């Protein structure tokens, strides 16, 4: 059987989209829920085929599909995944069924909610698998609208403000990006990512301008300090499943964009901007950690910890060496699982108590032992305890950062200590001590549905933590290729075109 004959990537992307349209016409809330769960689970299972049929050791794109879409403008429907995007696709499809499961008892406008969640999933998958700049931009924007509505319709008290802020920030970045994409077309004569890679090089000044436009769009999405101000608002106001999708996959679009586009397309500019990006990443790590320490709202705390973690990812990317970037790619997945898990946990707590201030709780161990166990594992994974997933990613990033700049690595390590501090502090405040609040004595422990969600997360946490080489085996070839590519093309070009591969 020829696997190449099956347009696997298209199926994975269009399945949630089709599912979304079907939800709109499906009668009955139960049907809609089960249908959504079925679609997302099926998508996940299909995406596992990517993993199992992966050609190990290959650096290039696999499962490539390419059809002419708008031939006059040279725009193709061009899909493909490599080691960098593979696990992000898997992460997206993995979180899909979990978010649907979590939203099981949403009552308010359920149909629209499910429609938006599925649409969102299709959009994010599209972002990770598009190899045509215009197609990429289309999906990039497509993810924006559902999230805008998810925050604005099901969010907390200041949801409208948060939704609009989220939208304006990201829109600002993406409009710059589309102009940059058009200008790239002018310089290279192509919208195709692979063509752009092998095209002639750009003059250093032009590279800087392009890098600026793309990196700004991505930095807003990540979000990198000082463009992060929209994120806490969006996270705190968003419904739990929205926060999970936001932290789990949407933010990854920013870091993914940096790795996928900024590095190989503008290598000279990348090289020049390393100090700037590293400084911003480190400021972000420390700043977010300090703010997290002061957070009284659990969700805000997780949101700031998320900014700090993504600072690490950016640090790893701009170390520009294999261990830094591989670590960053794996850390993106880790962050999706751990921070996603923390948001789930906060959501479950809030669902029971209708409060989520740190001070509202205390001594929950006795009341919610199962919850506590999951909380402990996921929190430790987020801190980076050896044996769990966070450690593998952060360790590799730090090795990479150390090779690139010892000071950067040193300061980043302080960030890890801070992370341990605020997370352990929050955990202690919530779970340990006497169960002194009478209203907390009535909280029921997790139900089966919630246990399934958390258990699958913990399974992935352990899998990555104990057997990281399964993942690195697929990530590394692409990353090595990328690092090599950046290195040989990084010399600033003045007029002469770069040698093609």
């Amino acid at each position, binding site marked *: 059987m020829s696997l190449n004959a099956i347009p696997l990537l298209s199926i994975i992307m269009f399945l949630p989209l089709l599912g979304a349209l079907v939800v709109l016409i499906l009668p009955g809330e139960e049907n809609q829920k089960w249908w959504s769960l079925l679609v997302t689970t099926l998508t996940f299972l299909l995406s596992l085929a990517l993993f199992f049929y992966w050609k190990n050791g290959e650096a290039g794109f696999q499962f490539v599909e390419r059809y002419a879409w708008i031939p006059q403008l040279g725009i193709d429907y061009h899909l493909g995944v490599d080691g960098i995007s593979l696990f992000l696709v898997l992460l997206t499809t993995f979180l899909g069924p979990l978010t649907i499961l979590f939203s099981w008892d949403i009552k308010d406008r359920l149909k629209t909610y499910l429609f938006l969640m599925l649409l969102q999933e299709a959009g994010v998958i599209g972002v990770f698998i598009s190899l045509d700049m215009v197609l990429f931009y289309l999906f990039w924007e497509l993810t924006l609208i559902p999230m805008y509505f998810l925050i604005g319709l099901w969010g907390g008290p200041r949801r409208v403000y948060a939704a*609009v802020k989220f*939208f304006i920030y990201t829109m600002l970045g993406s409009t710059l990006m589309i102009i940059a994409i058009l200008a790239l*077309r002018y310089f290279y004569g192509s919208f195709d990512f692979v063509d752009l890679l092998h095209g002639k090089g750009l003059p250093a000044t032009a590279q800087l301008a392009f890098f600026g436009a793309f990196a700004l769009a991505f930095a807003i999405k990540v979000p990198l300090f000082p463009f992060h101000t929209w994120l806490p608002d969006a996270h705190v106001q968003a419904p739990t499943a929205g926060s999970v999708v936001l932290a789990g996959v949407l933010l990854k679009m920013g870091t993914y964009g940096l790795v996928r586009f900024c590095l190989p397309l503008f290598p000279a500019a990348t090289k020049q901007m390393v100090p700037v990006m590293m400084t911003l990443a480190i400021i972000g790590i420390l700043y977010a950690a300090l703010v997290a320490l002061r957070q009284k709202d659990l969700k805000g705390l997780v949101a700031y910890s998320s900014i700090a973690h993504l600072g690490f990812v950016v640090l790893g990317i701009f170390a520009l060496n294999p261990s830094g970037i591989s670590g960053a790619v794996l850390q993106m997945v880790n962050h999706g699982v751990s921070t996603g898990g923390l948001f789930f946990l906060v959501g479950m707590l809030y669902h029971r108590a209708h409060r989520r201030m740190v001070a509202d709780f205390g001594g929950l161990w006795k009341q919610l032992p199962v919850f506590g166990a999951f909380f402990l594992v996921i929190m430790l994974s987020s801190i980076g305890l050896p044996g769990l997933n966070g450690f593998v990613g952060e360790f590799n990033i730090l090795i990479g950062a150390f090779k690139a700049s010892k000071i950067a690595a040193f300061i980043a390590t302080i960030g890890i200590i801070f992370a341990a501090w605020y997370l352990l502090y929050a955990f202690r405040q919530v779970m340990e001590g006497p169960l002194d609040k009478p209203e907390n004595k009535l909280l029921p422990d997790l139900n089966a549905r919630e246990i399934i969600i958390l258990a699958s997360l913990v399974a992935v946490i352990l899998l990555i933590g104990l057997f990281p080489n399964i993942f690195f085996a697929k990530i590394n070839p692409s990353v090595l290729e990328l690092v090599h590519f950046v290195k040989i093309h990084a010399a600033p070009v003045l007029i002469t075109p770069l040698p093609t591969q």
Partner: protein
Amino acid sequence: MITLDKLYLLSPEFILLIAAFLVLGIDIFGKRRWQKALPYWTIAGLLLSMVASFWLMGHKETVTDTMAADSFAYYFQLIGEMVVVLVTLALVDYLPGRTHQQGEFYALLLFAAIAIMVAVSATDLIMVYLGMEFLSITSYVLVGFLRNDKRANEAAIKYFLYGAVASAVMLYGMSLLYGLTGTTNLAAIAQKLTAGNLVSGYQWLLFPALLFLTVGFGYKSSLVPFHQWAPDVYDGAPTPVSAFLATASKGVGFALLIRVFVTALPAVKIDWVALLYALSVLTMTVGNFVALRQTSVKRMLAYSSVAQAGYIVIGLVAFNGKVPFTAFNGVSGVLFYLLAYAFTNAGAFIVVGAIEEHTGSTQMDDYNGLVKRSPFLAGVFLILLLSLAGVPATGGFMGKFMVFGAALAEQFYILALIAIINSVVAVGYYFKVIKAMFFVPGEGPAIAVAKPTRYALVITLAMTLLLGIFPSWFLHIATTSGLAMVGL
């Protein structure tokens, strides 16, 4: 000279002419129950005429010295006919109860469509003037048709006064152009100007002539500073007529701007590019910033359509005259943009009209919680607004993409940047409406939408998405149409 065997090239016009008289005849002599069918007769005529226009596309001949039968003309004819179909659908439930002379209204609408067709085929200044005036006069009447409506009245007189002055200025420009070249034929004017073979010595009159012509076309396409009529007229006119003015009628302004400047005035391209550059920047910026502080959705749409005109002009600024066209070229950009914009904007006005029918208001506050009162209208409006804002997978995005791409390809970086900043500003007010419709709670009875209006909206919605997701075929048509005109 006109020969009878070429008359079939005018069949779209003739079909509409027959339809118009048929509608008038039925209105006068027909039985009561036949009159109910008037809009459908109108639509039937328009559809037939569309078939003819489409059939004849690809021809490249001159019917007479004054009228071309090229794809460019047929392309704009199709846009005009399509918009009038949509407007007619929206009128089916709008007119009864407002006027008894429905037949006249539909007939006038058909005459306006014929005027568009004549104007876009014109290759002679006389025909350009005639076509424009034909369209203007029918439009004045359409705007002020509901005599007892004070606002419509006021809109009509404002439209008329601005329009008459603008057309007089344009005519003065034409007289100067005639004086310079001794001819009114566009191609002949181009020849004389390029060869420097002027019949009179007043060469310095060329720039004023250009400026005066721009006033006339700019007025039709509502370019700042000739736009002052637009918000008031769109606001006061019967909403379906506003939809017509903001799309089909505006398209004629652009068609003539392209046709006259490209075929007659290539010799002074530097001048008109500079002029249009300035107008484009002014139009986008003024349109967007004034739209931001509107509280009425209808007026906001009016200013937004002024701003959209500014984006469209960019395509003309980026016209490079190369044949065959480069991938991103201004003319196909403008043509595609106008097609997408016609559907999107007509749809948006129809939505506003449908809501106004039930709430009697166009205020933003009355859109609060619209999604509960009419999910259909809110959903359609959402997609149309996204298209106006230029979000991908909609026709509006592809249009902007083409036009901005053309600007970058011709190295108008600053212009592209200004346009981008403007489109971010525009997101601000489009999303104000979306916010009101979906996020802000609001109460009110459910809004029922009449069936024909529903059809019109479904068409605009489908076309907006189709143009955004599968633009290839339409782009091909736009490109060949543009080429036909440039090659003539």
